[in-house]
């Protein structure tokens, strides 16, 4: 068995040796990280977004690159998943988008700050992360298949509405399913409902989304067709 002196040598040699290997690998990583993270795309806006992310301790609820807390969604691929339009609406008033659900602090971000955060997430989303986050491996038969909404719906419907509503079984389940909504309400009612939900039904959880007139018209036309 080892003597105390040999044991001390084991400690010193293994520590020294592996510390050197670690520093060498760190040096090599520093050479590779700029390319793998597209550091050249790190715009001034994205850097400001990173600062907003840090200053408000967003990691205290969310994860990004899988690091942070587990109270709120993983945001590494949020730009790809939700798109700019949805993110803008959400960051304006987070609780409006998820009425009665888990709350996010209302930070009252300015439009500029929201753009910065979106640039930050766009940059994060384009990194080479060795395959993380993995694509789901278990196929579901019919239920809960986010994103794959019927092809003829307008883009704004896919970007925004499906976060809470479903059509043909795909979409969110915060608000009611919208199958057959066209046979229940006419176009004028739907138009009024989307432009100001509170005026139609005070106290409703449906948020006022401030979509453009053109987008609203497209959504109303699409919904009216769901008979």
């Amino acid at each position, binding site marked *: 068995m*080892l003597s*105390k002196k040999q*044991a*001390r040598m*084991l*400690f010193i040699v*293994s*520590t020294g040796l*592996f*510390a050197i*290997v*670690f520093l060498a*690998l760190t040096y*090599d*990583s520093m050479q*590779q*990280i*700029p390319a*793998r*993270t597209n550091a050249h795309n*790190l715009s001034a806006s994205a850097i400001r977004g990173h600062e907003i*992310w*840090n*200053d*408000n*301790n*967003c*990691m*205290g*609820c969310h*994860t*990004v*690159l*899988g*690091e*942070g*807390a*587990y*109270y*709120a*969604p*993983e945001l590494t691929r949020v730009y790809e998943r939700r798109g700019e339009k949805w993110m803008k609406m959400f960051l304006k008033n987070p609780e409006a988008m*998820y009425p009665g*659900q*888990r*709350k996010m*602090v209302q930070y009252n971000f300015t439009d500029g700050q929201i753009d910065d955060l979106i640039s930050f997430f766009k940059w*994060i989303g384009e990194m*080479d*992360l*060795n*395959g*993380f*986050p*993995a*694509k*789901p491996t*278990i196929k579901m038969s019919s239920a*809960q298949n*986010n994103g794959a909404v019927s092809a003829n719906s307008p883009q704004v419907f896919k970007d925004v509405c499906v976060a809470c509503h479903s059509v043909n079984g795909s979409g969110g389940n915060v608000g009611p399913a919208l199958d057959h909504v066209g046979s229940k309400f006419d176009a004028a009612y739907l138009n009024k409902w989307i432009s100001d939900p509170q005026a139609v039904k005070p106290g409703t959880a449906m948020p006022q989304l401030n979509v453009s007139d053109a987008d609203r018209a497209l959504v109303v036309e699409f919904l009216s067709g769901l008979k």
Partner: protein
Amino acid sequence: MKYKSQIVAYWFFATCMLLLSLQVIYGFIMGFAHMGFDNLHSIIPFNAARATHTNLLVVWLLTGFMGAAYYIIPEESDRELYDVRLAYIQLISLIVVGVTAIIGFHLNWWEGRKFLEIPRPLDYLVVVNVLVFIYNIGMTIWKGNKFSTTQLVLYVGLLSAALLYLPGMISFENQTLDSYYRWWVVHLWVEGVWELIMGSILAFLLIKLTGVDREVIEKWLYIIVGITFLSGILGTGHHYYYIGTPKYWLAVGGFFSALEPIAFLGMALYAITMYRRSGRNHPNKVALYWTMGCAVMSFVGAGFLGFAHTLPQVNMYTHGTLITAMHGHMAFWGAYAMLVLAIISYATPIMTGRKLWNNMASMLAFWLSNIGMVGMTGAFAVAGITQVYLERKMGMDFLTVQKEIEVHFFGLILAGCLFTTGIVLYIYNFIKHGVPAPGNSLTEADEVESVPSLI
């Protein structure tokens, strides 16, 4: 107790008790929020509760390590502490910085960097504070009349912990680099130099409690910390799988972090072997419980549960889920919380001269807190595994999954109540010891009193 300056440790331990109780309260706030009872959201949003919970943990463990050092180093150096007044100043300033940081968290003043949320200006104060501590301890050793391996390893551990705090203070615009060096602090602390502190405090306790020959214990101490660094340094790679770092970290991190449990297994076997060779019947059985418990639970929490999600193929799905919370809770509890509670259980009766060891309260404190923590870990495990399958494997929406697993947080809170009962009893017993008064402390002779074994 050999030297009256060792009493400084008592006040560090008392601070530990205070911070630990606050940490538990914030844990409940988060548990309830996960169940949907987020009534405190407007005053204490989740990110504030979380930063407070984890930072209190780090601060009370560090305070405990400092207290342990102030107790152990004079005894091992065979002289009074170099500067007692400086030690008190250091404790008070540490509390001031800590309280300021925690208030700051509630006012949105922090850095959004997991575990290192303390705002930058306060970081500098922490550095000064720790330097004062290192100086005080270092001078005691330097001017000491005796030199021991235990004190050397403890000192090297504390000094390296202080030095490794520095990489966490560099700012980067690139999130990947920010994370890369943040792990130098967090990982190399808990799976590196803190294990030196753990190993040496365990060695001290084992020497005192079992009476096994110092040479034997210290030889094993070297072997174990050797294995720790052999696996732990490159084991940092398990944080570099998926954050924008090169692919070879999957192999390097996977291989070396798979070796990390060996260090913890070594620690457990070492404590058990020394106990079995025990040539001494130390009357403070509860301190022995915490010491052996620490060695065993650190293997289960840090070693075994760490290994459960450390391989890259597994971590691909568990990275960033409640599985991490499962591992984190038992790892910190087993390796470091139980260690600090062990040294407190050992030293408090000696400092205060009241033999409140082995009473019902102290024994229940040990069992209830441990059973509670096992239950909490189980609740996190079930919630985490469900999250991994529903969200990561099947692609269900985050919030939908969170609704499904709310019930497991009810289980978490039930187990947490058991845990808290244990902690309350521990603190009650600590308070009952009273404050140390000069001349009251136990002597060496009190430590060999023979009582029937309770184990």
